[in-house]
């Protein structure tokens, strides 16, 4: 997960290349049990994380997020690096 971005950095980077109206539609805590369901996490890695993580972090190793963003329609400005909205 070293390549994971913070939510706000996702929005910033999308805005930097011209996307607008970035919305975080869903957040799902990604805990140790979830990591175990994910094929890229080997049992050895899960065991290591289980050993190293404090109990309060085991339910949220990271967060799985779902985002949308739009390429602006033709002719519209796209200076909206700050155009990030959280869905209520």
């Amino acid at each position: 997960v070293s390549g994971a971005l913070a939510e706000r950095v996702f929005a910033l980077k999308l805005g930097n290349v011209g996307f607008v109206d970035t919305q975080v539609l869903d957040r799902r805590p990604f805990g140790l049990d979830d990591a175990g369901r994910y094929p890229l996490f080997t049992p050895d890695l899960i065991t290591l994380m289980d050993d190293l993580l404090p109990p309060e972090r085991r339910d949220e190793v990271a967060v799985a997020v779902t985002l949308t963003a739009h390429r602006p329609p033709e002719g519209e400005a796209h200076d909206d690096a700050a155009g990030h909205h959280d869905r209520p």
Partner: protein
Amino acid sequence: MTTPPDTTTDRDELPVDPEALRGAVRTKYREVATDPRGEHHFHTGRYLARHLGYYDRWVAALPEPAVESFAGIANPFQLRALRRGEHVVDVGSGAGFDTFIAAHQVGSGGRVVGVDMTPEMLAKARANAALLELDHVEFREGLAEHLPVDDGWADAVISNGVFNLCPDKRAVFEEVVRVLRPGGVVQFADIANDNPVPPGAMREIDLWTG
């Protein structure tokens, strides 16, 4: 909320060697393609899809080889279904799970292109497309940073758990915006981490892939 520092990179300052990282990712996904259960304690595939909120009726329509190597981390369709007739690109399509759901949503009047860099996943995805007799789905070999898709072709770009594996996010997002038509949408799921990643960890390829 305070915006955290941008700890990711511009193209000239990548924390890992992109080719070495791609090699490690290909190795992992080759294992997931050829031995999806592998040494994992937990069920993957249908169990994971249900856990992530995919509708059973979507998944039930897919043959086992299309589901067993699913490695998504969320459900990019959950709040916006694709529209009939849309052109869609699935970045990091793997064995085709999300690609086939997209194909179902856009219907035979739409088109879906899955892009993946792992030959074993591409072979599996193409075999699955043949099993499903889908002629509006195509799988192409390529990188997220160099999508083999024409400018402005796509109405929507989807991806699931892939961008965190790409060291040069800017190059990826530039490609996504390039292939989208004006007004097009990217909808993707990925891992987010609001905890700063220590520079040492960013240089460890093993910590990118797991």
